[in-house]
Structure formats: structure tokens, C-alpha cells
């Protein structure tokens, strides 16, 4: 059984399943570091998945991915407008966006494809194979026919580390989440930073959705995100709001999901194996694994103190 659990096939499957969680978790970092909770990630993934499928169906996979990213950003802009400008509770706005995204996707799917729950098959980007490594049998599943978005996602981890740590933009973004009052007195536009953080997170979530529909599945299926947006938030928390940490957490969740998709043993009913990622999420956010250290002002809307 252990052989099966750690087989190359399983590892390859785990990495494929890590990607959407990883991308959404990276997005969540930008948003939360700027001080805004983005529960709407799930909905942004849903619209990303749908519009990417639509784009790919009509204009090919590259345009599809751009459509997915744009859709995520559009939904994120609403979140920014509602929370940053109108100062509405961030959780309420996020939940509303998830409801909205579900409605939009189902409605659009029916109106455009004539089917409520799936799109036709759409093409993905060309798959990659690393020829010399594919000769080695235990590496073969990992290095053959994989999506180009997989290495890109891991590169984006490095990019995120660099942006947050070493650029002026990253410094200002973090200041907006840690101490908005001080940032404001230093001349940083807290509102602008939070808009940026949220919209970047929408782009990441849209890309995550695009990966799911056109790279991973080859079509849009209703409910295909399966709560990955929320799991990504848990991965970000588990990774202590850092990109590297989120990457390892996402790998853990990807692995849990790979297990849940396989019926390894008949001893436990598969419905209970399916819940492993969700149980893991609950354990992580309950802090049973370690104490977390969120940005100081995350979740609170910033208002300029007027006399």
C-alpha cells in the first residue's frame, strides 16, 4: 500500500493537483498582505475556469488563459470596490462574490453552450516532455506530457518572494496590511495598495481556474473547483503568509487530494477518503499544527481618521 502511496504516478498526480491550490494561495498572499481577506477566491477560480474554457473554445488556449485571468481580475475589482471604497465587511463581500460567480457561470454556460454543468471539450496548451529524464523509469510520469503551467507556477513562487521582499511595491503592499495608519503618514496610498493586492489575487485565482478547466480537465465542469479557493486560504495560513511556506502547504494539500481521488483500499468507503483535504483544512486553520502570524491589520477596512 505504501508503494502505491508514494509511486511516481501518485507524485505526478499530486503535483498536478497542487497547481490550482498553489496559484490561488499565492494570490491570497498578495491580498492578505495588503490587509484584505479574499474569501472570494473560490468564485474567482470559478469564473476563471469558465471564461478560460470559453476563450479556448473560440480562440485557442493562450487567449483562453488570458480570458480566465481577466475574469478573475474583474471579479476581484468588485471585491476591491466594495471592501476598500465602500468599506463593506470583507467576508460578506467575498461570500456574495462566490454566490455571484456560481450564478454567472451556470447562467452563461446555459446561454452559451446550452448545457448547465459542462462545456464542450476545449484544447489546452501544448504539453511538455523532458526527453532525457523520461528515460528513467521512476521519473517518467513526472516529466512526460506535463502542462507548461506547472513550471510557471513554481517560478511564480520565486517571483512572489522577490516582489514582496525586495521591491518598493512589495514593501508598500505589506505596510498597507501591517500598519495602514503609519503607511498613510509616510505618503503610501493605502487604498491603491489594497486595490492592487486584491486585483493581483484575482489574476492568480483566474489563472488557477484556467489551469483547472483547459489544462487539467480539458473542459469546464460545474463545481470543478471543489472548494479549492478555500483550501488555498488554508494553505496560505499554514504557510504563514509566505510564498515558500504556501508552496509546501499546497504540495501537502495536493498530495491529500491525489490520495482522495484514488481508491487505494476498500476498507474505508471512498466518500470518507474524499473528505481528507477538507479535514486537513480544518485541522490547519484550527492551528493544531503550529501557531500562525497573520498581517496585523488583515480583515479590517482602513478609514482615514477624520476629526
Amino acid at each position, binding site marked *: 500500500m505504501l508503494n502505491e502511496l508514494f509511486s511516481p504516478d501518485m507524485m505526478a498526480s499530486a503535483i498536478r493537483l497542487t497547481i490550482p491550490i498553489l496559484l490561488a494561495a499565492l494570490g491570497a498572499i498578495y491580498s492578505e498582505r495588503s490587509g484584505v481577506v479574499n*474569501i472570494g477566491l473560490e468564485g474567482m477560480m470559478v469564473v476563471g475556469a469558465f471564461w478560460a474554457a470559453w476563450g479556448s473554445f473560440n480562440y485557442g488556449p493562450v487567449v483562453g488563459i488570458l480570458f480566465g485571468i481577466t475574469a478573475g481580475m474583474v471579479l476581484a475589482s468588485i471585491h476591491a470596490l*466594495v471592501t476598500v471604497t465602500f468599506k*463593506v465587511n470583507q467576508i460578506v463581500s467575498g461570500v456574495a*462574490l462566490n454566490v455571484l460567480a*456560481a450564478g454567472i457561470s451556470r447562467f452563461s454556460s446555459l446561454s452559451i453552450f446550452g448545457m*448547465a454543468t459542462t462545456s464542450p471539450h476545449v484544447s489546452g496548451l501544448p504539453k511538455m516532455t523532458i526527453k532525457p529524464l523520461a528515460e528513467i523509469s521512476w521519473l517518467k510520469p513526472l516529466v512526460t506530457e506535463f502542462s507548461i503551467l506547472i513550471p510557471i507556477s513554481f517560478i511564480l513562487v520565486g517571483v512572489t518572494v522577490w516582489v514582496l521582499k525586495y521591491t518598493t511595491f512589495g514593501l508598500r503592499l505589506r505596510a498597507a496590511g501591517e500598519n495602514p495608519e503609519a503607511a498613510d503618514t509616510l505618503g503610501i496610498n493605502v487604498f491603491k495598495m489594497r486595490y492592487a493586492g486584491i486585483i493581483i489575487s484575482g489574476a492568480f485565482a483566474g489563472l488557477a481556474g484556467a489551469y483547472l478547466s483547459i489544462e487539467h480537465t480539458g473542459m469546464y465542469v460545474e463545481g470543478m473547483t471543489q472548494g479549492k479557493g478555500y483550501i488555498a486560504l*488554508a494553505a496560505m495560513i499554514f504557510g504563514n503568509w509566505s510564498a515558500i511556506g504556501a508552496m509546501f502547504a499546497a504540495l501537502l494539500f495536493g498530495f491529500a487530494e491525489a490520495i482522495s481521488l484514488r481508491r487505494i483500499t476498500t476498507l474505508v468507503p471512498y466518500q470518507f477518503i474524499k*473528505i481528507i483535504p477538507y479535514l486537513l483544512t480544518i485541522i490547519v486553520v*484550527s492551528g493544531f499544527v503550529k501557531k500562525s502570524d497573520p498581517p496585523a491589520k488583515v480583515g*479590517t477596512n482602513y478609514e482615514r481618521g477624520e476629526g
Partner: protein
Amino acid sequence: MNYKYKDWLMQIAFTFGAILFAMFIGSLVIMFIGKNPITVYQSMLQFTFGRSDSIGAILFKSTPLIFAGLAVALSFRVGLFNIGAEGQYFIGALAASIVGFSLQGLPWFIHLPLVILAGMAGGMLWALIPALLKVKRGAHEVITTIMMNYIAYSVVHYFVADLFLDKAQNLPKGYGSPMVRMPKILESARMPTMHDFVGIFGVEMPRYIYLNWFFVIGILLAIAVYILIWKTPFGMEIRAVGQNPHASETVGIQSKKVYLKTFLISGAIAGLIGLSDLLGYIGYMDTDFPRGYGFTGIAVALLANNNALGVVLAALLFGFLRRGAEGLQAIEQIPMDVVVILEGVIILSIVVASQLMRRYFKTQEKKREKESQKTSASDGDKEGLENVE
């Protein structure tokens, strides 16, 4: 006194403004698929009010939404987000149907209350875990309750498809495969429809309308929740903790206890959401059991400003929208999911409207107390809890 009357009017005006805005967005969506919004809204109204069976249908559709709205509104009152009403009603319906088909030979006046209690217990059980994790570990209830929703779907699937699959379905040969469902709930546990009752008043409701006594129970429960919140000592604690948990602690209210109790009551109410469909209409638990009431409950609660009596009105509005959407699908071939888009827009516009309203009141107050030079410095921090009030 005079101010209060004005405030009420403003509140109603803002609520209607938000609904109008949602209708405007709805018009854009309708135009997007190449239809004329005015004729679409017209045929929606015609379908809904031109037919005699519509009132019954609206009341039936709003019944689960009353329970859902009450469950969510109660949790909002104490400053928590019960996004898990969805999973809680699935487990509630599961528990109710197990008690409903397994206990044989009971008279209805014992069996039916038992089944309803089982539903409440199921919902409460599913709320217990996030509630405990919240007060003991500080785990954010939004993520835990959403995860509990997914787990609930899986658990229900296991019970329906594996453990209690009804193998006694004898279909005539060649007539399809048996359904993936649990055994039928016994007659003694079914909720009677209101056909006979409305018959007394000379109203004839068609057989295919399943309006049942859960509607009346929902209204009574709304009154009970209203009294709980506004007329009991515990209700005062709920409101105090919802306003400011730290200040409540200093006057001797144990906020954790209040969180726990309120969340469990919210879960118990959520356990009732699915029962109107289960006991009044479908009669068995299956894998296609209606989903999504828990999320609509959030829209209902926010539209009602978390007022228990307002929940009934908001639920009726959503019942009306759903009925109208059915008509749109039939007459105009517009997918009825347009109503889900409307729900999302209504939530957003109502919270934005109430935020604008708060600002309006704040400036009014400032005008009134100009000379006293009162500053409100600590507002930014308590944003989160104020907003869901």
C-alpha cells in the same frame, strides 16, 4: 422620536434602492443575451400573478428560505458567520429521514415531532464542531463551516448510496435502474400539506403545490427568534457580544459561552431548512436533494438586516423571484439561474447601501452634536462586527 421615524423611512428607502439596483444589473444580464428587459420583467410578473397557483408556490418556495435566513441572521447577530447552514441542513435532513423511515408503528403526533427534533439535532451536531473550534482554538468559522459543508455532502452520499440504499425498490422489468435514494419516510412522519386548511376558506390549491405546515412553523419560529433576541436576557447578551465582545466581558458576559450557545441554536434552526422539502414534498433522501438554501439564507438575512421578522419578508421576496424565474425559463427560455446572479447582486448592493446609510447617519449625527465635538476615533477597528448588524 421624530428621528427614529425618519431613520426607519431611510432604511426602507435604502433597501428598495438596493433591490432596484439589483434589478438594473439583472436588466444588463438580460440584454447581454439579447432580450428586452422590460418585456422579460413583464412576463415574469404576468406569469407570477396571472396564475392562481402562484401564491401557494411562492409560499412553498420561501419556506426553506425562512429557516435559512433565521439561522444565518442569528449567527450574524452575535458577530459570527454561519456559512455552514448548507451542511447543517444536509445532516439535519439525513438524521430526520433515518428516524423517519426506521421507527415503525408510532402515531403521527409522536413520530413527526421526533423527526423534526432529529433534524434539529443533526444541524446542531454539524454546528458543534466549528463552534468548539472557534471558541477553543480561535479557528475562523467561515473556513471551518465551508469545509464542513463539503464533508456533509460526502457523508450524506455515503449514507444514501451505500449504507441505507433502498434495495426494496421493485421496478417493473425494463423500466430503468433503481434510484439512488434511502427508503421512503413513513406516512406517520410526513408533514401534511395545507390543502385541507385553505379549503376551509374556499381556496382550492392544486395538488402539485406542496405548501405544508412548515411554512406556519417558520413564521412562528421567526416570532420566537424575534422575542429571543429582543425580549430575553440571553438575547441581550447575544446583542451585546455582537456589538463588542470585549466590552461585554468587562460587564461579566462570558462571550465564548454566548458564541457557543448561539451557534448551536443557529445550527438547530438550520437543521430544519430541508425538512419542508423532505417531509412535505419529496418524501425520501436522495443524492439530488436540493442544494444551496444555506447560501441563499445569507442573502435573506442581509436583506432583512438580520431582523427575524424581516427574514420572513425577504424570504417571500426570494420565493417570488424563484417563482418568476421558473416562468422566465418556460416562457422566455431564459435560464432560471439568472435568479442566483440576482441573489449575489442583492447581497452586494444591500451591504453597500447599508454602509452608505451608516455614513449618512453618522454625518447627520455629527450635525446634531456639532457643539459637543464628539469624535468617533475607534470606529475603524470594529468595522467587521458593525457591518453585519
